[in-house]
């Protein structure tokens, strides 16, 4: 399955899982889908048989509320069965509303409270350097999430350390929970901010798989940020760019329409 096919299937699984469970952050999941599909298909060295294989690449989905996008992608890559995916948020499921390391092998660290992934990813990248490992570290953050100061402490330190093994992908959909980022606490110019902290920055279309691949795989001497310009709710016309779809659950009719729309694309 190439990354495009995978992204389409992931969108279908997201809709199915959230409708079945009756909860989930649907807009946030659809926003990050292409980023995860490219990472799992063409970037990450992982082994579903050995989720804790020591030489695996490290991925942290710091915007942990997009758990269903992550679990759906893991399902298509052999880490979970479809049956288990449908246990999302059910009693005693390994698939908690936010990814929990103690519950599910393959999750590197618990996320959910925003602003935690970047510092942990910096520690991983420093650690990889100390132990002379070849694996790389990837972290995906929300854009509203970058309002948390903890990120900037980590970004500053990663720049100082010239952590070339670290790549951050920002899901730049310009919405946070309740409103636009630029109306709440503006982030622009985001690339210049990272650059000022010693990072290489690239701004791309976060739904263009070729652009994602090229930007994520590019190598350099500094930590790298890929600012992926995305659309929250991508693929479902009535969810796109609508703050209310941050964590609304579709009705049966909306589900049917949404499924038709994501299945039709390309």
């Amino acid at each position: 399955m190439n990354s495009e096919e995978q992204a389409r299937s992931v969108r279908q699984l997201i809709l199915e899982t959230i409708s079945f469970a009756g909860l989930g952050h649907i807009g946030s999941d659809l926003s990050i889908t292409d980023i995860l599909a490219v990472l799992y298909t063409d970037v990450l060295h992982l082994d579903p048989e050995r989720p804790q294989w020591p030489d695996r690449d490290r991925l942290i989905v710091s915007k942990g509320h997009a758990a269903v996008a992550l679990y759906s992608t893991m399902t298509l890559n052999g880490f979970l069965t479809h049956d288990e995916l449908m246990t999302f948020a059910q009693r005693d499921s390994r698939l908690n509303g936010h990814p929990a390391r103690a519950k599910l092998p393959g999750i590197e660290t618990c996320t959910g409270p925003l602003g935690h992934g970047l510092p942990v990813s910096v520690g991983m990248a420093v650690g990889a350097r100390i132990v002379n490992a070849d694996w790389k570290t990837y972290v995906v953050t929300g854009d509203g999430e970058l309002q948390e100061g903890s990120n900037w402490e980590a970004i500053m330190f990663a720049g100082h350390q010239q952590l070339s093994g670290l790549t951050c992908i920002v899901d730049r959909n310009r919405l946070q929970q309740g409103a636009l980022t630029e109306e709440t606490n503006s982030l622009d110019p985001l690339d210049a901010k990272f650059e000022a902290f010693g990072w290489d920055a690239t701004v791309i279309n976060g739904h263009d798989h070729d652009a994602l691949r090229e930007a994520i795989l590019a190598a350099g001497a500094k930590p790298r940020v890929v600012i992926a310009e995305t659309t929250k709710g991508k693929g479902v016309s009535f969810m796109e760019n609508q703050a209310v779809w941050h964590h609304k659950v579709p009705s049966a009719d909306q589900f049917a329409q949404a499924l038709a729309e994501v299945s039709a694309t390309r």
Partner: protein
Amino acid sequence: MTTENAIDCRKPFAATLVELAGKDDRIVAVCNDSVGSSFLGEFKELFPERLINVGIAEQNMVGVGAGLANAGLIPFVCAASPFLTGRALEQIKADVAYSAANVKLCGMSPGFAYGELGATHHSIEDIAWLRAIDGLKIVVPADARQTTAAVRWAADAPSPAFLRISRTPVPDVTDASEIFEPGRAQTLRLGNDATLIACGTVVWRALQAAKILSDEGLKTRVINMASLAPIDADTVIRAAEETAAIVTVEESVPRGGLGGAVAEVVVANTPVPMRMLGTEAFAPTASVEDLYEHFGLGAEQIADSLREVLAR
């Protein structure tokens, strides 16, 4: 366990804040991208210049709150309780409590109200964390009425305070005429055989347990300890002297929480058999209703615990 007339305490919280802000323009609300989840939509519409949304930045939010208090304003800092208390704990200690800044910290949706969203979103440690901080009043209202009373008190009291505002709907259990007074508990049900001391929206569950027990002839006193700091030591001591056992009930970690607070008073004054019910560990994936059962906080389970302590 649901019921008619159950109210999400965020509603009276927000309505009272709007009412008070209409009379006192020193009242401001500060939040972290949480206008919706803190029910601040109406406040924002009516007083847009007094709604300060700092974005997803809780440490900054509490620091900003302290600065606003310094400028003579009365900030109500509203955020989901796990992020407000956990993330900004040192700001709460140094900028608010130690600096005696007149900030009202409003921890929304505490306990395990976020159910399936998991332990990162459960605020079960908040009471234990905050109880260790000198000079901070801690208020855990039991219902909508007491939430209203607590907000009124907080707006008037010139001191740092934490209000724990539940989203789990419960019917009113307190008296409509009560005003909130720190350090004063309410006895909601009389009884001299044993005592249940609870705080927050689980007070309702404790009352149901007491009814089960009383039907069996076990006269159970129920105390609503909404003021955790300062605690009403006299009422605890009286319960320890007059009844044979005390069981505490809270939607939080008893180590350092209500259980710890009551035990400290009991041990230092009138030792009596005790049991402390609450959340003892990170939660499994489960709904709110299942979590009450998982942590032994169902009415029948509370009644069982009390019987066990008495049989000891």
